[in-house]
């Protein structure tokens, strides 16, 4: 039997088992796809689902119209999202009371409820279809391709969309070495941020002898502001499982036993649940376990949950944690591909890296290598958040510029606000100012610009964010997450933090600022792992691009963004104040006084600068002032 014949046979056998009724896209029947990602869930998708079911039951349509809860659609800012297939009608920001109208118009009839459509923020035109919306139209989705269209709980749905075809192909036609070659030549690089060539890692791991080889998926996405791995696991867990099985086959087939682990954050409860479900289903169909699909290759995956330590995203700390020790990294001179988990050769890749593998096997390395830049191939997922209109999950080809991502897909900053910077790569990355917006996104150019790809967090900040405060936030985070093993990281970050505290309190000297850079270099030099090695990055990039703002805190003792509390003062503008009593009632410190319909005043001695009054004032009567006077008054307190 030729390999090709055997392939189609196994593939057919796999697909014959799939329940065809779960797949409706080919029929004329309508599907209502409700996004069940974390953001849409929090926006109330459960109530939405109930409303849909009720409306369908009233019309006797239960069972005739499919209601599917899918993974994250990516457009989290517009949640909860409902998409009607096959028309591809896109309804954002729905309330349960809107459902009745949608069912009547778009499901029973074939009209469109224009009132509820997404409006183009630039023109105000309503856009009916997903493909017309700039947020989706400008993306190129490989990993997220099926995210909004399949039911993450259904293996059949995945199979019917061509899932596990790559695995069948690999198990039959390819010898392990050629799988590694395929991935290596595709140019896929580690999506966890470091960008190590994935195929190369597999090759090293295979070449290292051991009693057992381990294949680990790193889903410990601890960086604040990043949620791509979570969304992939929530939306399409089988793609990651498939990628891991292929990796295990490439590393372990004919090379001794292999075992898999997924190390996932405990906070991601929904992702854990869906992954667990996916693994159980895969075992049921013999996609995992002994003698996978009759190929003679055996492999299984275990889930290991983290417990809220950022450092466990570092590969050696992660392995220590699986072994039941404190998650502390070890020196980089011992390579995990030779001595990893339990001292055995171990391959560790990010969720997104594994999710790319089936696509590469299915479409060939040339198709993958055709996307992206000379050194960085394929696409990259970013979590676009912060002060941006269209926040959410986006996937763009490598080499797209930061400007395209933020202004074309993300729709730019909120109305009336000015773009200030974009923070890339979370606590290990750095801020890029407006002047670097045309920088292409690839591993090398971001590092050259003082930032990092890292976990794909992209936080846009506008003129209301103080860069000193923002850098302090990240440093506080890494200082708190330092495992404490090596001194430069444990003590050094603390010293840097103290300096930043002084700067934002208006108590720093120019010496302090000058001390920051050499101190940062020492921490980078002396730390054992990348947590310490990249911890000073946010501060360094702030000093590089926003030195003026830092110096304003030091020399003029003012905070231009009006954030640093010791340097600001809240006052009430007597002309604008209508004396409505709203701020007075809400002030937790009882610092506001005044008669009704008379201008109120703030007692500076009592004011805690909690910002409540400013947020509540409908008349913009409470401006924030900054400068040395504010500090002088702060001192007097």
């Amino acid at each position: 039997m030729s390999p090709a014949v055997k392939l189609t046979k196994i593939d057919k056998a796999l697909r014959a088992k799939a329940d065809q009724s779960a797949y409706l896209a080919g029929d004329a029947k309508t599907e209502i796809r409700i996004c069940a990602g974390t953001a849409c869930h929090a926006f109330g998708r459960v109530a939405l689902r109930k409303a849909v079911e009720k409306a369908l039951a009233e019309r006797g349509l239960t069972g005739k119209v499919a209601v599917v809860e899918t993974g994250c659609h990516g457009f989290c800012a517009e949640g909860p999202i409902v998409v009607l297939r096959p028309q591809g009608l896109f309804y954002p920001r729905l309330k349960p009371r809107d459902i009745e109208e949608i069912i009547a118009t778009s499901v029973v009839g074939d009209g469109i409820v224009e009132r509820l459509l997404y409006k183009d923020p630039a023109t105000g035109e309503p856009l009916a279809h997903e493909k017309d919306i700039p947020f989706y139209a400008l993306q190129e989705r490989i990993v997220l391709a099926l995210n909004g269209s399949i039911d993450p709980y259904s293996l059949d749905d995945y199979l019917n969309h061509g899932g596990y075809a790559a695995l069948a192909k690999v198990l039959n036609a390819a010898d392990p070495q050629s799988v590694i070659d395929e991935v290596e030549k595709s140019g896929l690089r580690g999506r966890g941020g470091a960008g190590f060539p994935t195929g190369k890692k597999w090759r090293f791991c295979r070449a290292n002898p051991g009693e057992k080889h381990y294949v680990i998926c790193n889903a410990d996405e601890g960086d604040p502001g990043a949620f791509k791995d979570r969304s992939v696991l929530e939306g399409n867990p089988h793609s990651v499982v498939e990628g891991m099985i292929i990796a295990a086959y490439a590393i372990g087939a004919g090379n001794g036993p292999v075992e898999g682990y997924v190390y996932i954050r405990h906070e991601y409860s929904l992702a854990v649940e869906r992954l667990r479900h996916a693994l159980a289903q895969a075992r049921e169909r013999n996609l995992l376990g002994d003698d996978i699909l009759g190929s003679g290759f055996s492999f299984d995956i275990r889930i290991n949950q983290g417990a809220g330590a950022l450092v466990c995203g570092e590969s050696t700390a992660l392995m220590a944690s699986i072994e039941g020790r404190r998650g502390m990294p070890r020196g980089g001179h011992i390579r995990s591909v030779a001595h990893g988990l339990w001292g055995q050769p171990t391959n560790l890749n990010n969720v997104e890296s594994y999710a790319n593998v089936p696509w590469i096997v299915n479409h060939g390395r040339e198709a993958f290598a055709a996307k992206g830049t000379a050194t960085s191939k394929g696409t990259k997922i970013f979590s676009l958040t912060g002060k941006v209109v269209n926040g959410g999950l986006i996937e763009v080809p490598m080499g797209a510029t930061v400007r395209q991502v933020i202004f074309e897909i993300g729709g730019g900053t909120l109305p009336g606000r000015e773009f200030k910077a974009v923070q890339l790569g979370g606590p290990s990355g750095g801020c890029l100012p407006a002047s670097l917006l045309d920088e292409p996104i690839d591993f090398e150019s971001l590092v050259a610009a003082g930032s990092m790809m890292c976990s794909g967090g992209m936080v846009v900040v506008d003129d209301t964010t103080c860069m000193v405060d923002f850098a302090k936030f990240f440093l506080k985070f890494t200082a708190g997450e330092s495992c404490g093993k090596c001194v430069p990281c444990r003590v050094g970050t603390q010293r840097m933090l103290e300096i930043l505290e002084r700067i934002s309190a208006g108590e720093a000297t120019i010496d302090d600022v000058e001390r920051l850079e050499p101190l940062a270099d020492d921490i980078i030099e002396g730390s054992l792992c990348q947590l310490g090695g990249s911890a000073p990055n946010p501060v360094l990039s702030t000093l590089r691009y926003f030195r003026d703002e830092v110096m304003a805190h030091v020399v003029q003792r003012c905070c231009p963004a009006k954030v640093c509390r010791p340097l600001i003062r809240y006052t009430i503008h007597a002309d604008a104040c209508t004396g409505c009593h709203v701020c007075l009632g809400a002030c937790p410190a009882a610092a506001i006084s005044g008669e009704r319909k008379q201008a109120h005043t703030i007692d500076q001695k009592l004011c805690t600068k909690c910002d409540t009054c400013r947020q509540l004032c409908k008349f913009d009567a409470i401006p924030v002032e900054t400068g040395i006077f504010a500090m002088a008054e702060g001192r007097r307190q």
Partner: protein
Amino acid sequence: MANNDSGHGGRATQPQDSALYEVLKGIDFERRELVDKGKGVGLFDLVKARDGSYRCYSCTLCERVCPVDCIEIDYCPEFEELPFDVAAERAAALTSLPGESCGAGAACVMGEKPAGFMPQIDIKLFDPVIAGIRAGSGLVEAFHATQEAFGYLPREALEDIAEEMKLPFSRVFGVASFYSQFRLIPVGKHVIDVCMGSACHVAGAPLVVEAFSQELEIPVGATTPDRLFTLQTVNCVGACALAPVVRLGDDETLGRLGPNEARKLVRRLRKQEVGA
């Protein structure tokens, strides 16, 4: 004084020559040089207070933070006479004022808390954890299972895990205290988790934390005396589109919550409790 010939990567030990001096200035170099690594042990001793008692609170912090893992605290059967009165030290630690104790404060499980503070645990709930360990689950997984059963990691449970896995208690406790998600004391009825991710930070999460803290009159990480509320912060719940995000318990996620709404939320929950 400095032994330059030790050959540790050829790094100069003269502090002022070291590029890391600025970083290392928290460490007392002159003292460090008194420690002759060649002879090793016996140079570290417990410091005594004026009245002759030891100042050690057995917080195990030295063991936990040692950068080279050279300290391991263990029960030592040769010394049946303990070097100091543990019970009295514990009592002293518990009655000492804030700032006087070792700083471990409420996180300290080494000593028993005042009556009623540590509820009796139902050890039956613990059986599945032991079963899990026997089925091959790791230490961290065992902790997750324990926390699921009790809501926190009781000391008895940690002792049982240590026994079952044949590990020193210090190791088990060390791992439990390393991970921020494991709680060593019981939590209140409502656990408020304020997300401190970067998107939430720029959207004003620090103000929300402060509002909760003021309204509940407790610092972050503490539980109200009536055991109704525990205020915590989490790194990032990944719902950045909803920033600032607050998680109430395990299943309720509240988005776009300002300081004023935060205060209202606490008042509403309090009212509910009074009504119930």
